[in-house]
C-alpha cells in the first residue's frame, strides 16, 4: 500500500522533472537562435563566415598598400591637420583670412563636442530607463511570488527534528 503510493508519487516527480527539462530545452532553443550562430561566427568562422572573410582579407591587403598614401590625404582632410596648417599658413598669408579659418574650425569643433555631449546624455537616459524598467520587472516578479504564496496558503513543513520528541513519547508510553 505504502510502496504503491510512493511509486505514484515518484511517477509524478518524474513527470515534473520531464516538464522542467522541456522548459530548459525551450529556453536554450530561444537563446540559441540569437546567440549560438553569432558565437560560432565570431570564434571560428568555419560555417558561414569563411567566404566573406577571405574576400574581406583580400580587400584589406589591397588597402594596406595604399594606406600610406591615403593616410596623408586623410590627415590633410582632417580638422586637426587643417588647424595646424592654418596656423602655419597664417604666418605666410594674410592674418585676417587665417583668423577666419581658425574661427570656423573652432566653431565646428565646439559644435561637434556639443553634439557628442548631447548624444552621451541621450544614451545615459536610455540606459537609465532600461535599468528602471528591469528593476520594475524584478519588483513585479517578487510581488507576484509573494502573492502566489499568499494565494496558496500557509503550510507548516514537517520537521525531522520532531522524531526525537516522538521517540521520547514512545519510550515514556512503553515504560509505563
Amino acid at each position, binding site marked *: 500500500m505504502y*510502496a504503491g503510493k510512493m511509486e505514484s508519487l515518484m511517477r509524478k516527480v518524474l513527470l*515534473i522533472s520531464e*516538464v*522542467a527539462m*522541456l522548459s530548459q530545452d*525551450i529556453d536554450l532553443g530561444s537563446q540559441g537562435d540569437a546567440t549560438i550562430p553569432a558565437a560560432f561566427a565570431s570564434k571560428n568562422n568555419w560555417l558561414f563566415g569563411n567566404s566573406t572573410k577571405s574576400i574581406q582579407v583580400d580587400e584589406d591587403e589591397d588597402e594596406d598598400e595604399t594606406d600610406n598614401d591615403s593616410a596623408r590625404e586623410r590627415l590633410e582632410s582632417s580638422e586637426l591637420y587643417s588647424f595646424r596648417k592654418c596656423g602655419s599658413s597664417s604666418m605666410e598669408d594674410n592674418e585676417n583670412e587665417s583668423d577666419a579659418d581658425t574661427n570656423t574650425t573652432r566653431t565646428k569643433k565646439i559644435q561637434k563636442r556639443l553634439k557628442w555631449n548631447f548624444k552621451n546624455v541621450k544614451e545615459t537616459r536610455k540606459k537609465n530607463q532600461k535599468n528602471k524598467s528591469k528593476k520594475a520587472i524584478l519588483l513585479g516578479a517578487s510581488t507576484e511570488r509573494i502573492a*502566489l504564496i499568499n494565494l496558496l496558503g500557509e503550510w507548516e513543513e514537517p520537521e525531522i527534528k520532531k*522524531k526525537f520528541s516522538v*521517540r521520547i513519547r*514512545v519510550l515514556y508510553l512503553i515504560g509505563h
Partner: protein
Amino acid sequence: MYLSSHLKWKDTSTRKILQFREMLHYLDGAYPLSVPFGPAETRKQCMTSAQNVYNRLMLDMNPNATVLHFDTLMSLATNKDGNIQKEKARALIRLFRPDREGNLTLLDFVRSCDRIYKRIKVSYYVHHFTCSTRAAGSSMYSNVT
C-alpha cells in the same frame, strides 16, 4: 523449484527495499524535483523555481499570450511517430489540471508543483517517524529482555 522461486522473490524484495531507500535519499536532497527544475529544499524555493519553469515554458508561446497552453506540455506525451501516449497524457492532465480549453495558469502550475512538494515532505517525514518508532521499540524490547 520452490527454493529458486523463493530466493527470486527474496531477491526482488531486497532490490525493492534498496530502490525505496535510494528514492528517499534522492527526495531528501536540495533538488527533489530534479536539477533542471531548480532548488526545492523549502516551499518558497519550490515556488520560485516552479515559476521560473513556467516562465521558460511561456517562451514557446506567442509573446502576447498570457496563459500557457497545454499543447506545449502534451509534446512530452507524443511519440516520435507523432502518436499520443494516452496514459502519459492522462497522467499529465491529472497532475496539472488544465481548463476545458486547455489553458494552464501560473497559479495552477505552481499549485500542482506545491502539492507534489508537500507529498514528498510528508512521505519523508512519515518514513523517518516509522523508522524512529521501530528503533525505539526495538531498544525498549532489548532492555526488557
